[in-house]
């Protein structure tokens, strides 16, 4: 497989909570479960640390998709963080959808430290979805386009 420059190569930011999803991504790594290199992970202590501004910022700077991964509801290391994240992200995603931004560009997935397979599968699916949506043109700052 060689890199074709013509091909659409999405920029995807994945916010992963330190305790479950980041570990899940580590497990995907140590289990050699491949997913596209387009996904870049940012470690946050908890999904509740993800500010909607981070997500919009990513889109502003040219991201084509943003995914937030946290512990399964009930399993949050901080007991309640992902519950808050869940409400925040639901409302934010709904607003983006309301404004005509394709709703497949954002996603929340709960991935435990044991779910390396799920992490890899989720990322593969998400990248595929972004490929089908194509480049993000509705929510970016033109100045950041190359």
């Amino acid at each position, binding site marked *: 497989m060689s890199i074709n420059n013509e091909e659409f190569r999405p920029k995807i930011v994945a916010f992963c909570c330190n305790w479950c999803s980041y570990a899940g991504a580590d497990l995907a790594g140590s289990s050699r479960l491949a997913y596209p290199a387009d996904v870049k992970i940012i470690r946050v202590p908890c999904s509740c640390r993800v500010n*909607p*501004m981070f997500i*919009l*910022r990513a889109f*502003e700077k040219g991201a084509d998709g943003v995914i937030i991964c946290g512990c399964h*509801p*009930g399993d949050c290391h901080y007991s*309640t963080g992902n*519950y*808050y994240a*869940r*409400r*925040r*992200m*639901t*409302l*934010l*995603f*709904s*607003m*983006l*959808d*309301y*404004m*005509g*931004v*394709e*709703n*497949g560009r*954002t*996603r*929340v997935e709960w991935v435990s430290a044991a779910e390396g397979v799920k992490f890899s599968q989720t990322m593969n699916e998400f990248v595929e979805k972004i490929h089908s949506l194509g480049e993000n043109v*509705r*929510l*970016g*700052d*033109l*100045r950041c386009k190359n």
Partner: protein
Amino acid sequence: MQELINRAKELLANGTVARVLGWKAGDLPYNPEPAFFTTAEELDNFVYNGFCGANLSKYMIAASKLEGKTMVCLKPCDTYSFNQLIKEHRVDREKAYIVGVGCKGKLSIEKVKDLGIKGITAVSGAEMSDDAETLTFQTIYGDKSCAYADAMLERCHVCKGKEHMVYDELIGESKDTKDAERFAEVEKIEAMSPAEKFAFFQKELSKCIRCNACRNVCPACSCRKCVFDSTKFDSAQKANVDSFEEKMFHIIRAFHVAGRCTDCGECSRVCPQGIPLHLFNRKFIKDIDELYGEYQAGADTDSKAPLTNFTFDDAEPSIVTKR
């Protein structure tokens, strides 16, 4: 109005309050301004009519820091904002003497002008005592008139009701003005295709001049330093070069007041470009009502706000794609 002035003078005279927060007559028939009155003489300029749309609760943040109590005139919808400010410790209930004033719907001069009425030198029918259904204008281009309801602010057509949520005493009667569904406009947009939705908001937001009037008038946007003015977040903005920043600003503005916004409609009232900003806030309100149970910010001072609350079986964010 006279009853209000008399009561204000009385409260000033007997020392109950140190000042009165109300509206002062403007230099045109339709531009009264929010004002503090400290003497009986100043109160001669006090006015309360259909053009007194301004929600005075936000001025109480500053007034709470002053010596003595402030008599503040709040319309039914303003009291929701005041309650919300109490809840967030931004105003001191003890420093306020709340006179709940009656309301028969507030007027928008923009709407009057959109009806082709210009050069206005005098208005009748906007007084609170007047039950007139019609507004009459004297203009330099002749006399004009329009139905009161046709000149009403959008928010009054979806009025939350005549009840004051918090007050010390009530003066004046209120009128039912609701004649539209609160979420009808939101539903209309929700029914659009993504491309239509995008085009609609792109067009509306392209008018934004980043004057921050919507933010600065908002009683919920009471931050000492807004995140958009702050270097601490690396998000300071002043004006756009590209259309993205308006979207960022308006999404975040609405998000930050989600669950706190009382839907007072001030943002839409003050926008110099007539952007229907309430459509953002009301979308969040509608989602909150549907997903987490009906919630009216400012209806009380102790309930848990939807975004600082949760249940174990809340909807997953993927519900957005499923609806």
